[in-house]
């Protein structure tokens, strides 16, 4: 074995171990903030696996999109609404856990079976390394143009939705249910908190 292939093997084992353990942590840890941080670790190790496969552009895109955007967004959401409250115990929690565990285990076995029985072409196609950036660009602007544009339309819709939700005060009634919006809260948000109070 050469030095390069040994290094590759070590990297692969370490990355896979982080990936699997991290993913288990994301699902099993009770603290949602830990889950979110571990999710970042999972995304990073996926990026590492891409690097091992000689797909550096995909790896960098993975870090930029999943760690830099998606995960930060998740963390934002958690931290802005992170209220410390004790949730009431759900009845039959043990049974629910057993059931969901069985479903996940079944799915895992199914995937393992697919992975074993599929005749993979080994070794796979040779990697094109840094040329991949150009190849991805060519595909995005030719045969994958429609999915690419559809994805951007989807993002645009999400953005408009977010703006509508954030600018509720423009509407006098709720956009979805048609009920009159709580004007009191909106008015309260507009008046400064500290003026007009009787001085002590």
């Amino acid at each position, binding site marked *: 074995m050469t030095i*390069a292939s040994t290094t590759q093997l070590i990297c692969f084992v370490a990355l896979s171990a982080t990936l699997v353990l991290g993913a288990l942590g994301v699902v099993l840890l009770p603290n949602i903030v830990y889950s979110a941080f571990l999710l*970042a670790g999972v995304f990073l190790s996926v990026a590492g696996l891409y690097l091992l496969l*000689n797909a550096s552009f995909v790896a*960098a895109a993975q*870090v*930029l999109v999943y*760690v830099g955007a998606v995960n*930060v967004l998740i*963390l934002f959401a958690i931290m802005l609404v992170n209220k410390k409250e004790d949730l009431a115990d759900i009845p039959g929690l043990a049974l629910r856990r057993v059931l969901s565990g069985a479903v996940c285990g079944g799915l895992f076995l199914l995937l393992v079976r697919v992975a074993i029985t599929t005749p993979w072409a080994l070794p796979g196609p040779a990697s094109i*390394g840094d040329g991949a950036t150009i190849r991805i660009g060519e595909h995005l602007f030719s045969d994958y143009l429609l999915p690419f544009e559809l994805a951007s339309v989807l993002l645009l819709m999400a953005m408009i939705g977010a703006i509508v939700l954030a600018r509720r005060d423009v509407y006098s009634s709720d956009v979805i249910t048609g009920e009159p919006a709580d004007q009191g809260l909106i008015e309260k948000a507009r008046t400064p908190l500290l003026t007009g109070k009787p001085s002590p």
Partner: protein
Amino acid sequence: MVTPSMVTTSTGLDLQASFEATLAGLGVSPGAAHLLWLPLPMVLVLVAAVVGVLVNVWLERKISAAVQQRIGPEYAGALGILQPMADGLKLVFKEDIIPVRADGLLFTLGPVLVLIPVILSWLVVPFGQHLLISNVGIGIFLWISLSSIQPIGLLMSGYASNNKYSLLGGLRAAAQSISYEIPLALAVLAIVMMSNSLSTVDIVAQQTGAGILSWNIWRQPVGFLIFWICALAECERLPFDLPEAEEELVAGYQTEYSGMKFALFYLGSYINLVLSALLVSVLYLGGWGFPIPVEWLAGWLGQPIDAPLVQVITASVGIVMTVLKAYLLVFVAILLRWTTPRVRIDQLLDLGWKFLLPIALVNLLVTAGLKLAFPLAFGG
């Protein structure tokens, strides 16, 4: 594996090739020679980064003093040059405190996560044709994606401190970093479009044709300004140091930190400043290029460009030019810090989203149009 793409039509000093050839001459196998070579540039760049920070701290102290008509540090070494060492030693010997109600693990991990991406980004900073750790094909994109990891560290330390100022500071830092990343990436994209490559070496090589006239700043003046503003915001330098605004947030996400953990934040922010300045000089100011191309100078002096001595001299000139340009920008950043007031958080977000983002988009479109119209001048 990230493999360095070999530039075949290059002149200039290739230390790696010479080092491995020397070792091969001594009877070491090529694999072992490569293994011996690998840690050298990494250690060198790490040392360079830390020394860069020391210089930076000294400059900051001296320039701030000059701005405020003080003398600044003067007793620690000549002109107070040892003051940054004293600062560093003080931080090393300070007690390392983890607040009782804080989350110890995340509290420790936060500063590390802030520092590591910044240091990793030095991978793509070129000081010469072959004088960089790795000529990664995705070059500048690697820096953009690595710098997007930083907000996670900031959020982590803000959250783990269990302190409302820290949490607010962390959230602000992450929001700021995300908002300014987009115009930054768009400004870089315009450059990439002109040089047809993401690799930092290729970006500089494309600017070396006619010395100072071929630098990207003349073709991308708007992009240069956008990039510089966004880089300052990413480094949390003063017009944009909202996350640690003393008057509002005590010290933001750094409030609970002391000793070496605080030093990591400190180090991270200064390394990031030097890195940003280096990248501005790479992207817009011709990187290692001398204002007059060294090839012309060598031609006028009647020296062959690939003679060993000339190669050593041109490589040194390249390193000096890169560092000089970067430190000129650092000087501007320090001067800005001590002369401009801080913006409010709403002004900051307005500037990022409502001004810089549209301008960056227009800049990108105009660059694309110019590239189609004048392929010679704009890298067709």
